[in-house]
C-alpha cells in the first residue's frame, strides 16, 4: 500500500483534515443542550431590561407634561390629610409664657361661673318673655 504521505504537502493536509478526530454525537448533543439551557436566564434578563426601559419611558413622558409634580403634590396632600385624621392629641397649652405671667393663669372655675351666670340670665329673660302676654297691636 502506497502511503498517502508520499505525495505533495496537499495530500497530507487533506488526510489530516479528512481524518480529523470526531466527537461522539451524544457528547455533542449533550453539550449543545447545556449551552441552550444556559441561554434562558439571558432572555429573563432581557425581559427585565425591557420592562425597566418601558418604565423609564413612561416616567419621562409623565415628567414632560408635569404629571410627576401633580402626582407628588397629590401624594403630599394625602399625607397631610392622613396626619390630620390620625392625630389624636389636642391643642398644646403653653403654661409658662410671657402672656401667662402678664395676665395670670386662667382658671377653669371662673370660666364655669361665667357660663352658669349667662345661663341664669338667659333663663330669667325667657321667664319674663313667657310671663308677658303677646303683643297683638
Amino acid at each position, binding site marked *: 500500500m502506497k502511503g*498517502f*504521505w508520499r505525495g505533495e504537502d496537499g495530500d497530507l*493536509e487533506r488526510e*489530516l483534515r479528512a481524518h*480529523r*478526530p470526531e*466527537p461522539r454525537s451524544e*457528547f455533542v448533543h449533550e*453539550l449543545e443542550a447545556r449551552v441552550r439551557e444556559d441561554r434562558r436566564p439571558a432572555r429573563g434578563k432581557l425581559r427585565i431590561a425591557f420592562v425597566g426601559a418601558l418604565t423609564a419611558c413612561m416616567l419621562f413622558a409623565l415628567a414632560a407634561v408635569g404629571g410627576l409634580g401633580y402626582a407628588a403634590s397629590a401624594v403630599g396632600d394625602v399625607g397631610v390629610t392622613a396626619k390630620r385624621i390620625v392625630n389624636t392629641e389636642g391643642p398644646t397649652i403653653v403654661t409658662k409664657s410671657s402672656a401667662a405671667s402678664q395676665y395670670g393663669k386662667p382658671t377653669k372655675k371662673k370660666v364655669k361661673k361665667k357660663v352658669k351666670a349667662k345661663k341664669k340670665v338667659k333663663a330669667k329673660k325667657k321667664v319674663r318673655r313667657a310671663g308677658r302676654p303677646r303683643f297683638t297691636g
Partner: protein
Amino acid sequence: MPRDPLANPGPLIRRVYAYVAYRIGDGPEAEDVTSDAIERALRYRASYDPKRGEPVQWLIGIARRCIEGERLRPRPATSAEDIADPLDVEAETLERLTLGQAVARLDERDRELLALRYGSDLSARQIGELLDLRTNAVEVALHRALGRLRKLLEGDEEAADEAGLKTRSSTL
C-alpha cells in the same frame, strides 16, 4: 449588545474537540477538556469581544488554557495491532491510527500548530493572532511541521515493511 459567541454551538464543539484530540489524543480525556472549555466559555460569555476575533478563536484560546492548566500530554496512541488484526481493520481506520500515532510523536509546538490548522480549521492569520506570530512565520512553521510528520510516517512504513519481511521469512 455584543454577538453571542455560542449562538451555533454544534460546529464549534466539533472544532474544539478536534483541536483538543490532536493535542492530547482522542477519547474521554479530550471530551473532558472540551466540556471544561465550553463551561468556561458559558461563564465568561459576556467577555467575548467580536473585534478581537471569531468565536472559534476565542473558544480555542480557552481550550488551550484548559490544556495548559491541566498540563496534559498526549497519551501513547493505541497501535493498530492492539485493536485487531491489521487485515481485518479497514484501510481508513488504519490510516487514521497511523496518522494519530505520528501526530502524537511530534513535539509540542508542531502538534499545537497542526491541531490549530487541521483540527480547529483556523487560517494561518488566525493562528498568528492566537500565538502572537506573523502569518508568514506560521506558514513556514506549518510547512516544517508537515515535513517532520511525513518523515515520521515514512519511517513507520519502512519499519512496518521490515517487520513484515522478517515475519514472512520466519514463517517460510
